[in-house]
C-alpha cells in the first residue's frame, strides 16, 4: 500500500494557486483580527502568563482536581462517567441512548467526539446524528471532515455551500447568498432541535470547585440542543479542568480573542444541574492524555484550549489546508497532539513546520509549539 504523505497532499492543494491565495488571505484576516483584539488590551501578556500557569498547575495536580470535579458534579446531580479511550467513550454514549430508546440526537461541536469517530459509530448502530454547528453541519452534508477546529468548513467557498444546500436543503440552484443559506440551515436545524431528545456537547472549561462546565459557541447551538433535549451528554478531555470559577475569566478573555478576534464568545454557557425531569451526563475522557502528560517534552501540549490561533498564523497551514494533515486536529498543535494518538500514522506531521515560531508567540497559554515540533 502506498502511503500518501502530508507533503504530497499539500502539493496537490497547491496546484490551484488561486485557491491557496484565497485560503491564505481568509485565515490571515482572522489572524489580523486576533492582533487587533490582543493589542487592544494592555494586560494581554499577563493574561497569557496567568493562563499558562493555571494550566501548568492544574496538569500537575490533575488527579486531585478530577476527584474534586467528580464529587462536586455528583452533588449537582450530574452523572459522571469515566472513559479510558475512544471505544469506552462511544460505548457509554450508545448505552445511554439505548437505555432511553433514543434513535436520533443533535450534537454541537466537539473535537473530542470527532477524534473518537463518534458519528460513524452511532450511525452504524442505527442512531441518527445531526451536527448543529453550522460549519460542522456543512462538512457533515458534504461527507467531509472539518479542516479547522474553530472554522470547520473554512476550506469551502460560499458557492460550493450553495450547491450543497441546493442538493440537501432545497435552496434555489446557483444561489450563494450567505443570508439565504444561513436561514435555510437555521430552519432545518430548528426542526432538529425541537425533536431530538438527546443532545451531545463538548466542554470548553470544567470548574473543579463547582462541578460545572462551560461551553462556548457563537451560534447558541449547544444551548438550544441541551435545553430542549431530555438528556444532555457532555464529553470532555480530562485536561479541560480549571481549579476555580474565578479562573474562568482569564480563559474566556484569552479564548475568543485568540480564535476570532472577538472579546468573548456570543454564548459562554454554564451547565451544572439538570433541569427537573432531565438528565445531565458528563463523560471524562483520557484517550491518550495521561500518556502525553507522562512525556516531559510534550506535556505542555495539554495546556491547549483549542483556540486555533496557531492555525491562523502558520505559514504552512495557511498554504496547505487542514485536510492535508489527515487528522482531526490539524495545524501546528495538531502536529504535536496527533502523533501522540498514533505515532506511525502521523509521523510526517511534525515536519509540516518551518519552525518560524509564530505559533508559540500567538498561543494564549504559552505552549512552546515550535520547540516541541
Amino acid at each position: 500500500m502506498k502511503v500518501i504523505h502530508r507533503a504530497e497532499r499539500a502539493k496537490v492543494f497547491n496546484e490551484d494557486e488561486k485557491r491557496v491565495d484565497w485560503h491564505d488571505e481568509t485565515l490571515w484576516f482572522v489572524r489580523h483580527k486576533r492582533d487587533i483584539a490582543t493589542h487592544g488590551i494592555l494586560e494581554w501578556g499577563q493574561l497569557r502568563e496567568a493562563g499558562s500557569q493555571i494550566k501548568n498547575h492544574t496538569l500537575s495536580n490533575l488527579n486531585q482536581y478530577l476527584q474534586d470535579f467528580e464529587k462536586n458534579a455528583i452533588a449537582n446531580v450530574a452523572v459522571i462517567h469515566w472513559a479510558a479511550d475512544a471505544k469506552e467513550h462511544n460505548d457509554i454514549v450508545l448505552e445511554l441512548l439505548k437505555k432511553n430508546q433514543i434513535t436520533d440526537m443533535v450534537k454541537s461541536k466537539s473535537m473530542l467526539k470527532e477524534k473518537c469517530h463518534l458519528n460513524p459509530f452511532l450511525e452504524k448502530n442505527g442512531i441518527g446524528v445531526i451536527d448543529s454547528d453550522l460549519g460542522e453541519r456543512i462538512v457533515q452534508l458534504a461527507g467531509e471532515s472539518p479542516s479547522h477546529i474553530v472554522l470547520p468548513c473554512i476550506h469551502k467557498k460560499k458557492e460550493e455551500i450553495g450547491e450543497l444546500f441546493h442538493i440537501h436543503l432545497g435552496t434555489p440552484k446557483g444561489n450563494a447568498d450567505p443570508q439565504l443559506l444561513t436561514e435555510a440551515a437555521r430552519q432545518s436545524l430548528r426542526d432538529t432541535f425541537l425533536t431530538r431528545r438527546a443532545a451531545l456537547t463538548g466542554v470548553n472549561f470544567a470548574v473543579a470547585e463547582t462541578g460545572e462546565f462551560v461551553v462556548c459557541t457563537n451560534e447558541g447551538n449547544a444551548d438550544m440542543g441541551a435545553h430542549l433535549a431530555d438528556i444532555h451528554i457532555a464529553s470532555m478531555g480530562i485536561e479541560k479542568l480549571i481549579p476555580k470559577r474565578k479562573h474562568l475569566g482569564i480563559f474566556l478573555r484569552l479564548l475568543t480573542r485568540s480564535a476570532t478576534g472577538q472579546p468573548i464568545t456570543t454564548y459562554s454557557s454554564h451547565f451544572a444541574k439538570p433541569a427537573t425531569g432531565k438528565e445531565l451526563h458528563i463523560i471524562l475522557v483520557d484517550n491518550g492524555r495521561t500518556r502525553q502528560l507522562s512525556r516531559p517534552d510534550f506535556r505542555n501540549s495539554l495546556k491547549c484550549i483549542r483556540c486555533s490561533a496557531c492555525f491562523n498564523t502558520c505559514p504552512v497551514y495557511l498554504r496547505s489546508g487542514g485536510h492535508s494533515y489527515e487528522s482531526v486536529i490539524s495545524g501546528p498543535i495538531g502536529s504535536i497532539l496527533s502523533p501522540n494518538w498514533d505515532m506511525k500514522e502521523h509521523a510526517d506531521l511534525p515536519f509540516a513546520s518551518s519552525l518560524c515560531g509564530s505559533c508559540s508567540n500567538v498561543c494564549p497559554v504559552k505552549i512552546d509549539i515550535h520547540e516541541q515540533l
Partner: protein
Amino acid sequence: MSELTAPAFSKPVHLLNMVDDIEIIHLERVDECCGFGGTFCVAEEAVSVKIRKDRVADHILHGAEYITDVDMSCLMHMEGLLHRDKSTLKVIHIAEILNGGIQ
C-alpha cells in the same frame, strides 16, 4: 514579533536607521516566515516554495530594492527565486550594509 503585545523594537532596523540613505519599506505581513526552514524546504517543497513566493511578492508590491536580513539561509532561499525570475530586487546581508561604509 508582531504576535506579541510588547512594544516593538527591532535591533536590525535600529542599526539600519543609522545608515545614510536607507529607507525601510513596510510590508503587508511584517514578519511572516520566508519558508526556508532547513530540511522543511526539502520535506515540504511545494509549501516552502509558495511561502517564499508570497514573501518575495510582498517586497515587490511595496517597491523594495533590497531584501536584507540577519539570517543567511532566509536570504539564500529568497535569492533563489529572484535569480530564476531575473528580478532586479537584490538580497544583501545586513553585515554588508553595515560594513559598506568601511574602506
